């Protein structure tokens, strides 16, 4: 019996077992289970009639997918040029000094209101250590 119950089958069925929808399927699996495990990859491969190597290739290519469970609440911090220009590197250092982990992303499309961050799909502009700590606490409360 799978750790995922019928979850993988449901997700694949929703996408009609279509190999071209693999990235959508991996998004749904990642969102539901917090990662795409090898076991999940095996089930998806069987459903889509593609190889596990195909799935591994795709899963490892895209930043959005992980093979191990991620923290439920993560701070994605933009480290691209527009945010660098308003101190994203200094912000990253300050967060690190406070023991707050961040995940690096390149561009959240909020380049006029940087530094930009994202927590649980919530975009944060003019980010500071305080505003990110507050937003993270709110997300953990939800």
């Amino acid at each position, binding site marked *: 019996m799978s750790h995922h119950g019928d979850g993988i089958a449901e997700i694949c069925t929703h996408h009609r077992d279509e190999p*071209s929808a693999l*990235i959508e399927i991996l998004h749904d699996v990642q969102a539901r289970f917090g990662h795409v495990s090898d076991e999940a990859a095996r089930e998806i491969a069987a459903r889509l009639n593609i190889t596990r190597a195909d799935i591994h290739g795709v899963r490892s290519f895209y930043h959005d997918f992980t093979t191990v469970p991620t923290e439920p609440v993560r701070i994605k911090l933009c480290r*691209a040029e527009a945010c660098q220009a308003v101190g994203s590197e200094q912000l990253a250092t300050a967060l690190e000094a406070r023991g707050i982990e961040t995940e690096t992303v390149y561009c959240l499309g*909020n*380049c006029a*209101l940087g530094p930009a961050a994202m927590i649980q799909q919530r975009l944060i502009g003019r980010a500071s250590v305080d505003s990110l700590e507050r937003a993270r606490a709110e997300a953990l409360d939800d």
Partner: protein
Amino acid sequence: MTDRVYLSMDAAARSVGADDIASALSRAGCELVTTGSRGMLWLEPMVEVERDGVRHGFGPLTPDDAAGLAAMDFPDTHAKALGPVEALPWMQAQSRLIFARCGLIDPLDPDMFEAEGGLNGLKTALALQPDAIIDTLTRSGLRGRGGAGFPAGIKLRTAAAQPGPVKYICANADEGDSGTFADRMLMEGDPGQLIAGIIIAGRAIGAETGYIYLRSEYPDAIRIVSKALDIWRAQGWLGENILGSGQRFDIHLRRGAGSYVCGEESAMLESLEGKRGQVRAKPPIPAISGLFGKPTIINNVLTLASMPWILEHGGDAYAARGHDHSTGTQAFQLAGNIAQGGLLELDFGISLKRLVEEFGGGTLSGRPLRAAQLGGPLGAYIRADRLDVAMDYESLAAHGAMLGHGGIVVFDDTVDMAAQAEFAMAFCAEESCGKCTPCRIGAVRGRETLAKIRQGEDVSANLDLVEDLCTLMSDASLCAMGGLTPMPVMSAIREFPEDFKPRAEASAADRVD
């Protein structure tokens, strides 16, 4: 008496507290209409109140401001009052063809969209033969807004000429360039403009299926576009018999997954097929063999979104705007260390200096401006004393720069250009798809060599090495990722040589950041 209160609720406005403003206004009993953004991002969160048909703005607001304003019925004497929004200099200066309804309408209200003329271009196209649509678009001189600037009409004609019943339209909404947010703003503020453009392009080449490839970093845009597609189907504007014309077309939304290189058209096709986003060798070009091996038009969101206006007003009306071979309008995005950041849709040809100084108001930090990067992470850095360049394809190319997707990232004098050059290589190393050696290996070697230069190791020999490497990457890379990474690197070295001096020489002028 106040009629309705409009609140900008796109992701940028929400990122600086628009949700709290919405709550405060609802508590105060206001009838709220949520809209996209006008693009004056330094004024967000901003609300607008309609009086005698004129919308008056207030911003940037705190929740207390909003509650106070609602209690006083939004007096024009309030400290945060901006006056009639469309009379503001930022709005007055623009030619908002693509962004006409952005910030004006509720993006998910089909009646508002139609009342503001949203369907006009599509209706014109549905009454025309495919050839006539292509003629109009060719005459307009419209060029691809994703960065390459390829003439849209020629691409359409190539795909239209291919035999076979199955063809595709792909909207490239993988807006990964730092400093750009125009696609996001349009998709969140007026997704119908994009949808109409995709259908028009579909009719032009005889396609019945479209895809929107939207990056996963834009969850709000994904939600809004997805709902908009449902609304369009329910309205009979998308699907089997569009607006009763007999035209059939449907659009699927696909999410990206955090890969920058998937903004490159052939990598995007691979990704749409469910594969690793690896670049394809050309030829064949996608207009001949693209998605699933079928003729495919891939255009940026803004290219497609320009089509409804062109169909409604004619190719000549569009071609009458702009400059030389850069016709029409361009969405310029002011970003980074800028006092008044945001989006301006203007005819091509405005000077970079005017954009940054007059509209942008200089740096946010108040320190002297030192550099501006144009066209995203693969674009050139321009020195502060060389900003007097016209913003169009040809003038920028003559300056060794490029327009890209219209992003302008401003830096003040604390920027270390050697660090920026190293970052450009590091970014390429991180995001390279790995298919071709110059990009995959070159970027890693470039990053290492620039790190040595920054540490003062064999500076002059290592600079020669970087230049050699950049020549190789430009000449031999398969796509623009490796091919254009040398542009920010070499422009930084050429324009800011003082930041690449050996340690002994530089130490006197060492800046502290």
